[in-house]
């Protein structure tokens, strides 16, 4: 499982690669839509790329409530945590 800082840094790299966003702008508080200029179609591309990278799928439903870079980091972290928890509690049959 990655620390939130690791996740943030990987997310940052993805945002630079996909959208050429200035790295300095990508702070945890930055709003994806207002500050980083991401639109709804970009958001779908971002979800796909994150799935490729982390092997975990953020539900579009969850992503609707995401506003800031920190929110995305949290969502990925929460997915990893819940899977780790589920994994230790009940190993896959």
């Amino acid at each position, binding site marked *: 499982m990655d620390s939130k800082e690791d996740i943030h840094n990987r997310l940052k790299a993805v945002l630079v690669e996909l959208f050429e966003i200035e790295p300095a702008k990508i702070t945890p508080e930055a709003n994806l839509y207002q500050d980083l200029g991401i639109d709804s*179609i*970009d958001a779908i591309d971002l979800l796909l790329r994150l799935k490729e990278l982390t092997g975990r799928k953020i539900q579009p439903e969850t992503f609707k409530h995401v506003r800031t870079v920190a929110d995305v980091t949290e969502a990925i972290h929460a997915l990893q945590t819940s899977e780790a928890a589920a994994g230790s509690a009940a190993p896959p049959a």
Partner: protein
Amino acid sequence: MKLGRKLDYGWRLLGTAFSFACFGLGGVLLSVTLFPLIRLVSHDKDSTRRRIQRAMQHSFRVFLWQMTFLGVISYEVSGRERLAQRGRLIVANHPSLIDVVLLIALLPEVDCIVKQALWRNPFLRWPVAWADYIPNNSSAEEMVKSAAANLRAGRSLIVFPEGTRSVPGQPLQMQRGAARIALAAGVEILPVTILCEPSTLTKAEPWYHIPPRRAHWRLLVGKPLPAADYAPAGMPEALAARHLTEHFVNYFSDSTGATAQAGRGAGAAMASNCTMH
């Protein structure tokens, strides 16, 4: 001279009011006569679409002819021959209310994106559905998908990347949907610059705010641009869409003189071989 001006102004105000009334009433009238009739005699969805789109073109032509005849507007088009080729994404700036009327009147069969209010209009919702125009209420992703599929099938589409009419005197603001559609379809983009002098029927003005003299529209059809030029292999489409949209902003800022480059007069230089109406 002064009286002449007042008469001219009064005439154009009446002509504008009359034209607006005709547009509204004509739309309703055609929606309960000609359009349903076309629907009735057409055997499938595609022939309905083609015929309705052609009927739209002719209705808008008549409307423009009427406004020109009344002396309310005048317009000219340069590079008109480039409009003949099908299957292109037609991208235009959006200074005035009648831009889409001018473009549809020039294109025999063309798709366009229609705002939600029209799909709720009890009369116009049927013709826009029969014309298979694209509603802007579906998700952006679905809209891009279906628009791109239609373009690949050889249909043309008009998009105003600004999304709404320009704010006069402000730098152009463009959304990336048009670029996304072009890249997803992999077709050619045909840029059309629309100039209106003096400015009228803008977003900020009610219809009766008519200009001091008759407004003149110039449509400058530019050179086609393959979307693929902006999508080198391996580049994420999101990034290509950014670059292409940036190109649109620069192109139209230049051709309309909308930014700091105002006064360079790219528009004036391009309008040398115009045909008058």
